[in-house]
């Protein structure tokens, strides 16, 4: 049933700016796809330089996502179960890397892990682990905020019920809290992975741009357009892969949200 009243009473004239906004978002992507040279597409994405960037991006992206899950889910639980004031402070702290320009994040990481930084002795800067750290830094807030929202909205009533039935804290976590937060955890993980493989600014500053070591897909694309590294054709093909990955991620998130319109 979809009667007239179901759609509300938004002025029809708003359709014009709405369509303008939609075009603004979609047209550049269409332009990108139009530039793909399909004849050489397979050769482009399987060139050694492209494969190196692709493999590095997915490897570091998966590693960063794994780290985010291991430290982000406990952090989300901590925030969700804190009092309102502490939770607000913690949430703000987690949100800062989200709103910070990634470049600034890269500089900050450099001052902590760089050769002259507090933890410079670890020798992490400009290595593959640095890529993972940079990605973790920018992607973690996505996971924490998504999981925290899910855990908080579930509340503690089910946990109390489980406790009254004799379940210990770990049992409650494993059988009640985490399963109930599963949609948030899946959505957060997927967003986190998408953000990680798209990471550019912090990686460029903190990990550098060494092909095969720290040059991920976004860096390879940027480098190609500056006239070095992979060809522009390869860059466009890689960009298309990133776009496709983003679309798949979005569909996964939608699919996992129970009751959502798919």
């Amino acid at each position, binding site marked *: 049933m979809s009667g007239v009243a179901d759609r509300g009473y938004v002025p029809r004239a708003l359709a014009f700016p709405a369509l303008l906004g939609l075009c603004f978002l979609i047209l550049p992507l269409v332009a990108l796809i139009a530039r793909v040279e399909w004849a050489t597409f397979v050769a482009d994405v399987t060139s050694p330089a492209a494969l190196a960037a692709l493999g590095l991006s997915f490897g570091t992206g998966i590693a960063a996502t794994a780290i985010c899950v291991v430290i982000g889910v406990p952090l989300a639980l901590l925030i969700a179960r804190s009092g309102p004031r502490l939770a607000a402070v913690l949430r703000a702290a987690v949100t800062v890397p989200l709103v910070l320009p990634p470049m600034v994040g890269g500089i900050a990481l450099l001052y902590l892990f760089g050769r002259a930084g507090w933890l410079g002795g670890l020798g992490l800067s400009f290595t593959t682990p640095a890529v993972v750290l940079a990605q973790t830094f920018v992607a973690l807030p996505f996971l924490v905020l998504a999981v925290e929202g899910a855990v908080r909205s579930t509340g503690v009533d089910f946990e109390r019920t489980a406790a*009254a*039935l004799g*379940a210990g804290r770990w049992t409650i976590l494993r*059988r009640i809290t985490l399963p109930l937060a599963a949609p948030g955890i899946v959505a957060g993980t997927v967003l986190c992975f998408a953000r990680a493989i798209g990471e550019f600014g912090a990686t460029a500053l903190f990990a550098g741009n060494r092909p095969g070591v720290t040059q991920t897909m976004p860096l390879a694309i940027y480098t190609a357009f500056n006239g070095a590294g992979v060809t522009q054709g390869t860059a466009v093909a890689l960009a298309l892969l990133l776009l496709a990955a983003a679309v798949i991620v979005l569909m996964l998130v939608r699919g996992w949200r129970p009751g959502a319109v798919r």
Partner: protein
Amino acid sequence: MSGLQAHVVVDRSRFRVDVMIDAAAGETVAVMGPSGAGKSTLLSALAGLVSLDGGEITVAGRTVERVTAPRVSTAPMHRGVVLLGQDPRLFPHLSARENVAFGPRAAGTPAARARADADEWLERVGLGGLGARMPRELSGGEQQRVAIARALSASPRVVLLDEPLVALDPVTASSIRGMLRDQLAGTTTVAVTHDAGDAVALAERLFVIDAGAVVQTGPVREVLRAPASAFVASIADMNRMPGVAARGGWTDSDGHLLTSSDVASTALATADGTALAAVFRPSDARVVAGEGANTWKATVLRVEPTLSGSRIHTSAGAVDVGDTRDAWSSGDTVWLHVDLSRVRFVPLP
């Protein structure tokens, strides 16, 4: 000592709850009281969700919480106290069977046996064969049955009921009430309710709580028959008219005299001037033509339609009449009568 002994003292922002309550092993006691009297606080304290500011709680012979030294504090998961509330609160991501098997599995029963036991429990609460259903696929009444099975399958030492039937329609509530009474036999239970019918059906003894303290206690029917407060009178559907003892009976400020054939009531009325309340059912009173024995004069306040006729609320008690409500209107003066075998006296505090 087994069963439940509790002295619960909890400071609330506006008042202090200080309640002594006990239930013998296997006994069901009911707790009634006006909203905000401290009933929910009492249950939360017994369940371990609110910590005590004084007193102690003993469950099945084991002190689970004590404020004075040596202090004892037991987390909810180690008390063996299960709360059943209005909201069945089934775990939404688990099937009915897994919900019921949750407690035993948490206690270490192997999953296969816990599931088989869960199916038996579901059978016992009238849901045989529905084990695979998810909570959202069950009706409100079915969900409450699963919640009951889940609570009892955890082999609790004490079950707390917080009006578990109030959100259900009367037919469903009545069938679940019967099932609940059968299943709770032998389990120590504290049942909070607003419904005197529930109290009579489920419990042996009744605690009436008001403003954070127990104001009346005893076997359910005795408490309801001799309401010591206006609250109990109203839940028991009784008139309770304050007055004093005089001439072996009860009089109000207008000098009307009521006598009772009840021995205990007459004994109370021997000393003139003792504060007494006359209690009787509105259905036992009648409107009469004029003055006589055991009659009194009252002013009609309002006339209310009831299932079986009308109830006339007057300045001195209510009376049930047949469907003749048009015969009276507010402001009328009427003479009321109650037979001496139908009226009892209770002491006023």
